């Protein structure tokens, strides 16, 4: 392969890697920016998304965990991937609403430290629940053959290689991940920038006190913000699941890079979250290609450098940052 082809492959791999971070970071960022709520359980929503996606899309054999002990030999509805892409965000959206209503809301007026502690506790509980039910072993989450495979729909093939100019064959699913992410982030961006709902959200990010004084009832937009953030994490779980191993620790493991994406991009900034995710993705892909031993270290080094030179994040607003 030519150098150009190498570069394009690294770019595509980086964008795909970054896409997962972007989906998580946009959700975290709007929650942190609007609600001033630090959600260390965001990874748990990703975890829920992955398992729910697996459940809806496929049917996999269970080899350990309580479910298997209770007599379930396989797990899943096998409705196909399109169904997962539609249903899982709804499920995780509801999970987000419940989390806002019954947990986060009692902590808005408590210090950051308490918010971190309680959501960290929730993250442990969710992770261990999944460990109890499904065991510690990894479950196989195959890349979907087709997105539409139910009923009379003509299936659109999405797995396997696709021939691209310059680079030749490239795993098709990775392109889909990038595409789905781009569409969703654009939707959220339009929602926040161009609707009344978004206006309240943005005003709340700038000055929650003022919005309250203006008499806008902010509870409902808040809970919806939380739900949207959760749904994005759920989708990240569905599209990211087939790319990595699936086990109960994926949620807590992805939380750290997701948070770093938010803070290097700038809290409350959707564009910042996208930029942060893309930088992380590209850096990781480049290092994997040229210096694999340093691939993980590089991520943290970049985060450290950005935060030390520009503490409010790349696209962060000095006055808004908490």
């Amino acid at each position, binding site marked *: 392969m030519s150098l150009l082809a190498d570069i394009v492959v690294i770019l595509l791999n980086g964008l795909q890697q970054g896409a997962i971070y972007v989906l998580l970071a946009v959700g975290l960022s709007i929650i942190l920016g609007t609600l001033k709520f630090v959600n260390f359980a965001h990874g748990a929503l990703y975890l829920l998304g992955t398992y729910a996606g697996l459940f809806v899309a496929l049917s996999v054999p269970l080899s350990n965990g309580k479910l298997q002990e209770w007599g379930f030999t396989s797990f899943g509805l096998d409705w196909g991937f399109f169904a997962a892409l539609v249903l899982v965000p709804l499920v995780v959206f509801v999970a987000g609403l419940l989390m806002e209503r019954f947990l986060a809301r009692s902590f808005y007026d408590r210090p950051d430290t308490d918010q971190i*502690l*309680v959501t960290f506790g929730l993250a*442990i509980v969710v992770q261990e629940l999944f460990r*109890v039910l499904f065991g510690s072993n990894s479950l196989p989450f195959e890349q979907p053959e087709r997105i539409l495979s139910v009923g009379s729909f003509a299936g659109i093939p999405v797995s396997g290689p696709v021939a691209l100019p310059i680079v030749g064959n490239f795993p098709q699913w990775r392109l889909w991940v990038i595409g789905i992410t781009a569409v969703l982030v654009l939707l959220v961006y339009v929602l926040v920038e161009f609707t009344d709902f978004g206006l309240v959200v943005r005003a709340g990010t700038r000055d929650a006190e003022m919005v309250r004084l203006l008499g806008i009832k902010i509870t409902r937009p808040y809970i919806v913000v939380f739900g949207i953030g959760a749904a994005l994490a759920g989708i990240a779980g569905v599209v990211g699941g087939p790319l990595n191993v699936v086990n109960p620790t994926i949620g807590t493991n992805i939380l750290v890079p997701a948070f*770093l994406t938010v803070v290097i991009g700038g809290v409350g900034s959707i564009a910042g979250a996208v930029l942060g995710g893309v930088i992380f993705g590209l850096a990781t892909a480049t290092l994997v290609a040229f210096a694999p*031993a340093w691939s993980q270290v590089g991520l943290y080094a970049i985060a*450290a450098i950005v935060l030390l030179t520009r503490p409010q994040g790349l696209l962060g607003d000095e006055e808004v940052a908490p």
Partner: protein
Amino acid sequence: MSEKTDTATASTDTTTSTKSETAFGGSLSERWEQLRGREGTVVGLTAIFVAVFPWLFARAPVISDFVQGYQSLATLILIWGIFAIGFDLLLGYTGLLSFGHAAFWGGAAYASGIVAKNVSGDPIVMVVSGTLFAVLLAWVLGFLSLRRGGIYFAILTLAFAQMMYFMAASPLAFLTNGENGLTGVEVGSLFGMIHLEADIPAFGGMLLGTWLYAFVGLFFVGAVAVAYRILNSPYGMVFRAIRENEQRAEFVGLNVWRYKLMAFIISGAFAGVAGSLFTIHGSYVPLQSLFWTESGDIVVMTVLGGAGSMFGPVLGVGLYLYVENIVSTIQALTIPFTDIVLIKDFGFYWHLLLGAIFLVVVWVVPDGLWGILSRIREFVSAKLGGDR
């Protein structure tokens, strides 16, 4: 390290006591004596606890059968106890939540292990070198992480600690042995004659068990003494002032930033002592010791027991390690003295159980189990007082 600090503490004691006696007599010096007595009492009671704990836990008739404890777990509890006491100086007293203390715990564990393999396996040398490494690292990471408050501090400490983990995992594998952890650490004998794994002869052995436990126990008592003294020094006041109202502390003329850095370094030093002892205890350093879940564990232990109290975090350590190591082996939870099984495979749920307890504690009783105990004590003494 602790011997040195101990003598330093003792000498400060005598100088201040003479000074205060000459400077002013009467009620103030009396109160001084009371407080000094209180400090002596705390350290003395700690020493007694350390002396009887392994016997009660692992060897006493009836009790030890019931709790199912064993010697090396008693040692491990004291080691993590030192870690937690230091962590609480930062979280409970200064109000800073670090999610990166695995860097100091694991960093010291590696440093002492690497020194043992390449320089000297003398336990004192190991503890000193591990602690020094942790202090230097805390100075650097504190300098970088304390630039911003709140969540940024938590996330930055987390990020730097993870960076250490991945450094040890791969680029530095030639030093750390990478994923397999640092194996083959040979711990030498103490003062060239005492093998730490050996049992202490006679009565001392019945109480304390091994020399290793006695060695760790000395550090534990030293840690309690030093922490207690810090909390009653100007630092203790300043730390709590920063926790209560950082802006006000700055505006009475305190250099808040440097005090925070000192709190971070001091807690890093405690973590360093504990991490070094952990290597001596296990003769092995798992890569896991640098992973962020380890930072999470110390957070959970400290908060569970009661952040902002002297002994709460140690209680939290005891509970956590007890559940992790002993409750997790329980096959089935039965109603006592019957065969009726309440929960099958009870031990399997240990981590879930701890997570749930932690969640409830953070939510409902932020001052932890120690806070609950204090309230029960107050309630009981109020009741008794009322009856009289």
